């Protein structure tokens, strides 16, 4: 990369040009550095403004879990494992099982995270995923009932981020949906207060079941840069740190919206939101193709 000049005209006339290397300039003025790229319609990592990073999905990466998946979006890698456990139902919903999504952003994935209780960001992502799954009724919780009032399946949906480079919501949601699609649970038998789950033989269609997913919501996140609200699809870590707003759209396979959120930055016109929804449709189709390709 060539050095970028940063100097005022009057200074240049009297003294030799004052130059930085590009990487120094990026460190000193990250926003200005990015603005120079954005004005040309590209981003420092070579992507166009509306381009997503290469995405891969792998199923069944954790053999001890009931279902699992690993998703990579550029430099962001997350692993999701689903563990089914027999549990007592909650008092007010005796015939409903339950699922508990949890996103873990530990110091493993980025120096920005501290060990200890989950950070605000991890909690917010967990909450968003929980709400999307619940509000758009992805799972019929009655399917998870073993014996009403006695025993139900509890699904522990744990997402661990292995490498953090922005856009954790898209990566986590994709991983959760892929892992749920990958889940296989042994058929239980209920007999007088005891739940028996069949033994060690391999799981097949006779002795186990898959989850019925009513829909598969997938999302696309866009960062809003500057007061001009330049839309950056799939922001990476450094882009997230200089943007103060984002738009996130979640869609199911029938083209119905499951969630739309716009936070931060100034007020954005409705046509901007519409643009993002349209772009999400394209992205979701690509993502679904990637997912189904891997599943076979």
């Amino acid at each position: 990369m060539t050095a970028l000049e940063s100097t005022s005209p009057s200074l240049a006339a009297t003294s030799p040009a004052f130059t930085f290397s590009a990487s120094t300039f990026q460190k000193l003025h990250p926003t200005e550095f990015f603005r120079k790229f954005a004005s040309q319609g590209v981003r420092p990592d070579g992507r166009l403004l509306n381009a997503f990073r290469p995405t891969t999905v792998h199923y069944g990466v954790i053999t001890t879990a009931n279902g699992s998946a690993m998703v990579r979006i550029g430099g962001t890698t997350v692993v999701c494992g689903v563990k089914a456990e027999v549990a007592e139902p909650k008092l007010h919903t005796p015939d409903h099982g339950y699922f508990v999504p949890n996103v873990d952003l530990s110091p493993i994935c980025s120096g920005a995270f501290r060990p200890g209780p989950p950070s605000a960001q991890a909690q917010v992502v967990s909450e968003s995923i929980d709400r999307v799954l619940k509000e758009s009724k992805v799972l019929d919780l009655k399917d998870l009932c073993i014996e009403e009032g006695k025993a139900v399946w509890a699904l522990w949906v744990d997402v661990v981020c292995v490498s953090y480079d922005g856009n954790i919501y898209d990566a986590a949601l994709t991983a959760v949906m892929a892992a749920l699609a990958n889940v296989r649970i042994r058929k239980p038998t209920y007999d007088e207060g005891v739940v028996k789950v069949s033994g060690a033989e391999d799981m097949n269609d006779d002795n186990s079941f898959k989850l019925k997913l009513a829909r598969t919501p997938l999302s696309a996140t866009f960062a809003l840069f500057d007061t001009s609200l330049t839309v950056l699809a799939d922001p990476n870590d450094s882009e997230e740190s200089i943007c103060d707003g984002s738009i996130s759209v979640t869609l199911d396979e029938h083209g119905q919206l499951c969630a739309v959120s716009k936070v931060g930055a100034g007020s954005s016109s409705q046509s901007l939101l519409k643009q993002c929804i349209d772009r999400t449709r394209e992205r979701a189709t690509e993502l679904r193709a990637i997912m189904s390709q891997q599943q076979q």
Partner: protein
Amino acid sequence: MSRLDRTRTSAHQLRPFFSSQNLLNRADGSAQFDFGGSSVLCSVVGPAEVKIRQEKLDKATIEVIARPLVGLPGVADKARERSIQETLEPLILSSLHPRTLVQIVVQTMKDDGCILSTAFNATILALLDAGIPLQSILGSVTCMIDSETNEILLDPTTEELARSKSTHVFVFDNKTSIAGSANKDQAKDQDQDQDSLEGAILYSDSTGIFTENEYFECAHAGFKAAQAVHGFIRTAVQKKLEKEYQQTQA
């Protein structure tokens, strides 16, 4: 069409507003805002001294703490804190008070649906009371789509929300609507550009199952209702100022 909430007759009717400013003695600003049976109390302290760890050299640190009605704060409260904080950050002229802290505490007092919207409106009133410099004011309204009638209901109660297909929280600032009478000429120009006038969205949070058209219909209904909230905030501030100025006017 009748609503589950018997006190209201139409789908787009909001519950009665109530507000009260300057009610906490030790805070720099405070306000309560009610949408019918939902009530939120908000306090603002600042610009105050900031911990070195939180200090920002070029602007004020904005901290939001959301407290639930009962029990300890949970994940949902954290999400609410984030929403309020990220929405206020571009609104507060934080560069005017660098190296300081603006702390906002949002306490739910009564919950009958639409707590996030109620909290947004309480927060803006508390910020106005505290005299924190703002780019504009905001107004928030929640709407939902009924799963049985497919109708858009504004400001739903908890009972109505149980029957929702999708819920939508919107926040609009008052910059895109017509501010003051002096701005009439500009308003005319904007009339041609319907899109910019019809509610640029400051914050939006929707979940459930809904179509694109439904979303923008909700945004439209929300924008209209937000005008009523803006108007109410203006009246609230006006009433407070009139009380302060009655000695000088006499």
